[in-house]
């Protein structure tokens, strides 16, 4: 089974796949990895009514609002480039992740 290797920054410790071999079981080791994901420099791009907003991890307030998605994604990419760390998480209107950059 092929394993997707996403560009993941900020995951502390073990980066070896630990998925249980007996199916898609979320084992204690998987839970530990999820717990250790460091989201500090992540930027979230999400739709809000007819606009797109960008927000830093942990902040409830929106940093900026854009009319089009591509502008919001570009702005988010600029922020992580300046910080030289983190990733951009793009959500759809259902609150689900549509892309990780």
């Amino acid at each position, binding site marked *: 089974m092929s394993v997707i290797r996403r560009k993941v920054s900020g*995951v502390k410790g073990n980066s070896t796949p630990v998925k249980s071999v007996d199916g898609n079981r979320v084992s204690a080791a998987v839970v530990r990895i999820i717990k250790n994901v460091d989201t500090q420099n992540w930027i979230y791009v*999400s739709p809000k009514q007819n606009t797109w907003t960008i927000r830093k991890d942990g902040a409830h307030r929106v940093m900026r609002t854009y009319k089009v998605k591509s502008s919001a994604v570009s702005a988010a990419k600029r922020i992580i480039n300046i910080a030289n760390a983190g990733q951009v998480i793009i959500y759809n209107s259902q*609150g689900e992740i549509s892309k990780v950059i």
Partner: protein
Amino acid sequence: MSFSTNIFINCPFDKEYKPLLKSLVFTIIYLGFEPKLSTTASSGHQRIDEIMNLINTCKFSIHDISRCEPLKTGDLPRFNMPYEMGLDIGCFKFGNAQMRSKRCLILEKVKNRYDIVISDISGQDIKEHNNKPKKLVEKVLDWFTANGAIPINNVPSLSTTWTKFQDCNAKVEVGLATSGFTASEIKNLSIQQYIASLKSTI
């Protein structure tokens, strides 16, 4: 977990409903409650026995009757959700003192559609979510504020809950990808596995 913190979720488990179900279980866990869903552990178990056991052990219940409709043209509608809701309301009406303390929230897709489907429940306070997860979270938070399950001051705002939901989802997905789960495995993760992952982020 005790009777007073268990919440029975009576909802569909189809692919289209998954975003709504994820936001629902997140809100419940975020508020400090325990979601209880019917997932038959063994094919030897009768599904209805498991459901009745859940109804018996949960003070709160959330019934989503938005999928009382045929899956495709010519099919018959699905009546599992209204049947289970009837069992729960029956316990509240005719049960012992503990059963009479039960509280339930009934969710629908659009306003007043239930008037056509189950007119017997007309007059009850039924909330509509328009198939939008954020709207569903809003209705659940309103219900927690109204039913006194937690002090009003401790009920988080919709925007706080929604941003936390997004943050936790991101953490879960990236954590699972790092653990070796493929994109399709993450997408098709069972709700029980999702709950197990989610609990580690809240």
